[in-house]
């Protein structure tokens, strides 16, 4: 199925909950409203024509200093889906506000979402509602802050931890 047909099918199902679509550089992308993301992912996974059975990647981007996005929602959570059955790809995005960084979890759809969402929480401080075990993945629990946020300075030192501090 070609990319524009995928986007059209998503629009047909989700209606106004698809906020915008584009096919920049051949990567077909749909921006979905936060409340519709689980529906969108479920539809992508289960629809016979789409059959996006693999959650290839789940990550986020902090648009804090991005030209033109300074006042918009701060984060994008990005889902890259791939269909082994039909060999096509799509990218879904959810805009996340800085004040309420909360997205519904996809752990009920794909088990791998568990770790990927933990990484996004760890690196960006975006919470996933309904996640069974939202611990940090790469950093340790005592780490202060979320390092991939644009306002986290790369040279920041962390407080020492351990039994003898």
């Amino acid at each position, binding site marked *: 199925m070609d990319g524009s047909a995928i986007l059209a099918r998503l629009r047909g199902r989700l209606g106004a909950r698809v906020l915008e679509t584009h096919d*920049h*550089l051949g*990567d077909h992308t749909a921006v979905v409203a936060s409340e519709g993301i689980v529906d969108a992912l479920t539809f992508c996974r289960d629809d016979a024509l789409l059959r996006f*059975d*693999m*959650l*290839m*990647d789940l*990550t986020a*981007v*902090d648009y804090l*200093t*991005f*030209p033109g996005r300074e006042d918009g929602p701060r984060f994008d959570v*990005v889902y*890259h889906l*791939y269909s*082994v059955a039909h*060999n096509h*790809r799509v*990218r879904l995005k959810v805009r996340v506000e800085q004040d309420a960084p909360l997205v519904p979890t996809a752990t009920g759809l*794909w*088990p*791998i979402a*568990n*770790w*990927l969402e933990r990484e996004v929480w760890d*690196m960006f401080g975006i919470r996933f509602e309904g996640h069974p075990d939202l611990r*940090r*993945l*790469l*950093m*340790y629990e005592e780490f202060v802050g979320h*390092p*991939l946020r644009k306002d986290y300075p*790369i040279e920041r030192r962390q407080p020492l931890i351990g039994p003898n501090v």
Partner: protein
Amino acid sequence: MPERTARELFLGEGPGTGSGSQNLYVNLGPAHPAMHGIIRIFAELDGEVVVKGDVEIGYLHRAFEKECEIGPYNNAIPYTDRLNYVSPLINNFAYASAVEKLLGIEITERCKYIRVVMSEISRVCDHLTCVGATAMELGAFTVFLYMIKAREFLWELVEDVTGARLTISYGRVGGVKADLPEGFGIKVRKAFAEVRQVLTEVHTLITGNRIFMDRMVGVGALSAEESIAWGITGPMIRAAGVPFDLRRVQPYWAYDRVEFEVPLGKNGDNFDRYLVRMAEMEQAMRMVEQALERMPEGAINVDFEGREIPVDAYVDRGKQGKTEGLLLLPIALSPNLEGQGREAQRRVNVADKKVVMPPKETTYGSIEGLMNHFMLVMDGYGIRPPAGEAYFAAEGANGELGFYVVSDGGDRPYRVRCRPPCLPPVAALPRMIEGQMVADIIPTFGSVNMIGGELDR
């Protein structure tokens, strides 16, 4: 608290647990000889059976994605070496291809073949390491030594081309660092003969070996459906019988112009993973041979006709204003400035002056070249893809290696995301070891081929 006996304390036996015994918690790692790299498996045991496992990663986190954001686009190349450090060439090329996609440029035909050749050589190195290490942990130390010997021959090839063995930094946005050296095809043939002999020896030693099969067959199995749900790619999903190979289903570079087969397993257990990796090595070598044969030719050595003048004399003449005809004069550069011949670099790199550094002769030999070089290294200039985002996926040795690059139009990547191919299998590791024996953790973990560099980034 009443005094507890050693048996109660260490074996969990005794009163207060209902059934008279309780489960034992065991830490494997972080620093454990069988945890190649640093990773911690926290296992709950009932006798010798693993009831539950939890995997803790992140011990090798070095802020790869954050570091990429603070330098120009090409500065990320050395960091990508350190992702999967057993097959760093694939990381280099995949990252460069993601940026090229963002820029909308097409690399030269010869460069595509070079990328295929070097990627496949790396893939053989990676599989050799994985199979060798797994075999060693099951007691077959000979296999490990043989395979490391074979890898040595391949690393000599890599060293020949890139000048380094591990941290090669050979890829560039828009091309590669240098063309293949002279006589490379002959060296490849010799090295592959050695590797093939090692593979035959290893097949004879362990493929039908009773001890090896007892430890591998039916252990750590994942079905095709489960592998897909866990996002597992690469040899592990093919061992479960899913014919998903990016080189076949979404060909990039020159993979649609070489013939190869996609080896498939059936049961998705450790033994099938081993067999798939062994078969893939042969296919990879086949691809290298074809690609070398079909690589578009061009003169390898560039003759500079006429006499050469030393570079300092050249600069002196320029300072005196005697610039007439200077551009046409060939200059003798010291070996470390010489870089590639101009023609040789033109063959492997894109012509776009906004992307690829000019050859050293041009930089030191003409004002246009110097300005071109300067514009590419100056802060705020350099490679500046238009604002946007691109995801490029290559078939890494462990599976889909994806780079998601976001540009804000500046000379530094706004965000680089690496989709590490070995993260999903490590995430699925608890699922694979649950219900198995403690001793099965080791071969299962070996077959995952965890590479700390790309797992923790």
